[in-house]
């Protein structure tokens, strides 16, 4: 279903629909269906490429902030457009249904944090109610209304977020980190990821214009990410410490980005960390077949080992 598996084509000779200024389809549900598949394919490819680029920012030399900001803005722009024409909703729903969430999660994860005013303009049913969200960070359960597919609650996720958020420099793949939590608490990573995706959707819908800001105080954005700075319960120091060591280790796992010679160091820029953190593994097609628990074990070994 996802265009990711298909061969990317950049029709550079002649018309490049993505580049030639063709506007995204108007924000109507009918338009979503009439969206040309090649356009959406290219857009998706562009999105994937941008995310990979962001991850590749980590090198021994400090990453180029200008480049990262421009790529991040492009990603945000794509996400906005996809939210507008409803493709976003489709993708996240499919993601929820998919059994290999790690694959796609990174993409949605990154975009989750980017909110969009247009997205607010009522897309699909909101899985979350806003009021719940405002307290939701600390509450055990966030009720999702209206969405049959997402019967899982967010309960398992809520305690995760505060700790994640406190570790503001955490850059571990989002898809995996909460799973750890889950593994420790419930042992069901997959479910967690589904929750993530749903959260991301609501996040996209409720966000305001400023992207990448998860401010729990305003309740505008579902935390979705570890970037959130909000008054959190006192973080578990051990957990934080674990997370703080995560980053370099993850890149060791990366099979896609084999070009990275050295353990990448996190630059000082939170932006980069937030956007580029998600596991390279998540974008790797080879990881999709592994069981998530094995992956987690592997990661745990590395963390503990480091």
């Amino acid at each position, binding site marked *: 279903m996802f265009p990711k598996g298909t061969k990317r084509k950049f029709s550079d000779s002649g018309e490049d629909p993505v580049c030639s200024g*063709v506007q995204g389809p108007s924000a109507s549900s009918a338009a979503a269906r009439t969206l040309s598949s090649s356009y959406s394919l290219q857009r998706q490819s562009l999105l994937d*490429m941008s995310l990979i680029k962001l991850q590749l920012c980590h090198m*021994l030399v400090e990453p180029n902030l200008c480049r990262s900001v421009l790529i991040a*803005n*492009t990603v945000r722009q794509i996400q906005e457009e996809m939210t507008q024409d409803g493709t976003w909703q489709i993708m996240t729903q499919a993601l929820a249904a998919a059994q290999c969430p790690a694959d796609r999660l990174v993409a949605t994860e990154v975009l989750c944090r980017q909110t969009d005013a247009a997205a607010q303009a009522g897309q699909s049913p909101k899985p979350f109610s806003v009021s719940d969200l405002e307290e939701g960070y600390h509450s055990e359960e966030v009720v999702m209304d209206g969405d049959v597919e997402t019967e899982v609650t967010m309960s398992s996720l809520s305690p995760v977020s505060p700790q994640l958020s406190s570790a503001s420099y955490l850059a571990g793949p989002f898809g995996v980190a909460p799973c750890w939590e889950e593994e420790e608490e419930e042992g069901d990573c997959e479910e967690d990821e589904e929750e993530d995706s749903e959260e991301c959707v609501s996040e996209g819908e409720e966000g305001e214009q400023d992207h990448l800001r998860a401010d729990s105080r305003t309740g505008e954005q579902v935390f979705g990410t570890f970037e959130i700075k909000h008054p959190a319960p006192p973080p578990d120091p051990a957990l934080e410490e674990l997370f703080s060591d995560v980053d370099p280790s993850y890149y060791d796992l990366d099979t896609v980005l084999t070009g990275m010679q050295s353990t990448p160091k996190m630059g000082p820029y939170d932006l980069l960390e937030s956007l580029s953190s998600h596991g390279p593994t998540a974008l790797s097609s080879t990881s999709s077949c592994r069981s998530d628990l094995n992956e987690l074990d592997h990661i745990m070994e590395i963390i503990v080992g480091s």
Partner: protein
Amino acid sequence: MNVREKKERQSGEPCMIWDATLESLAWKSRGWEQVCRYQDLEPADSSMEEENETRKINNSFLRDHNYATEADIISTVEFNSTGELLATGDKGGRVVVFQREQESKTQPHRRGEYNVYSTFQSHEPEFDYLKSLEIEEKINKIKWLPQQNAAYFLLSTNDKTVKLWKISERDKRPEGYNLKDEDGRFRDPSTITTLRVPVLQPMDLMVEATARRVFSNAHTYHINSISVNSDLQTFISTDDLRVNLWNLEITDRSFNIVDIKPANMEELTEVITSAEFHPQQCHTFAYTSSKGCIRLCDMRQAALCDKHCKYFEEPEDPSTRSFFSEIISSISDVKFSHNGRYLMTRDYLTVKVWDLQMENKPLETYQVHDYLRGKLCSLYENDCIFDKFECVWNGSDSVIMTGSYNNFFRMFDRNTKRDVTLEASRENSKPRAILKPRKVCVGGKRRKDEISVDSLDFSKKILHTTWHPHENIIAVAATNNLYIFQDKVN
């Protein structure tokens, strides 16, 4: 300033037309010829091949490589305010200064070539222990100070540190001291019975460069530009998020005058890409952003110049909007005109000239390589879309120049609206040979000497160029090669 006579324009033949006051230089050159080419800017081994007589190149500084070492990639070029000196910085942290030969009276048509005057290691690679990151020694920018005495001063900067270098000559040596004996040890003062005043004796010219000031530890992010103020006492250094004001004499203190860092780094959507002082007004400077806007600030208004006086931005053309619109609108360079009335910006596909009095749109827009508009996807994929090209004015502000790919560079005559594409390459030009205008074929039929867009070499980019302040001499950096061209005067 050289004042040339008016030359008659012969019918059918382009020629040089100079206005006596050089205020409006209508440029219709006979063509640009290569003066010299330097490769790798390093002294050659003594085992080098004999100088080829037909090449008027100072071969002693040529080293023929089939490969370009990374450290030799030229990262900045800059003429000084008289044009006598040309400085280049490279990725290895070295600065090479060229000096123009004196024009010989016997061969007036052969204008002075540039020879290596001084070479020094400006910056060394550093390691930031706090962040476990390496700080590159690559020289990002060099700016000359106007000459005030016999020595030359320039500012050179890498990502984090600005240094003031003094380049001075020594051609005399004091001789005649009687304080030391033959093997150099100081004599016992009681054995010295006469007072001998040393005499200055001529010696071989020695050019030495010393670091006079080091301006460090003021930038968290990467410095992308420096600019010396017209008051010759202060300068600004600009990184991605901040602009700092320094006094040339004081190295332990700098004032932050622009700070666009958001409280929450996640909200960051715009960075500063370059900044420059106004050439005459010491209180005015401009800075550009990755969103394609220019802000003019007045330092008299407030200590912190976050509030701009003028804001220049061209509204986006909805018909060309794409996902890459923002990236290609990001300004990579800004230059005030010499007369201080205009400023020029370079974004990925165009060069724009702005009138300081008109903020809502540029005065002129020149397409540098619009044929790349349909290739933005590929250029994004191979990162070329993030290349930062510089732009430069000629001495009379009538012609602007900027680089492109395939070692092409473009010149635009603002008065006649004519433009030319030239190529800086070894294969296609011999010294003193006139550069042939190049043309990129956009579609359909390709004529014989045209080159198609798909054949362009995107690894050969001309990012750095500079124009002599008074004459039509340009220096172009093509990877590890430095080309110096001058217009051919009859």
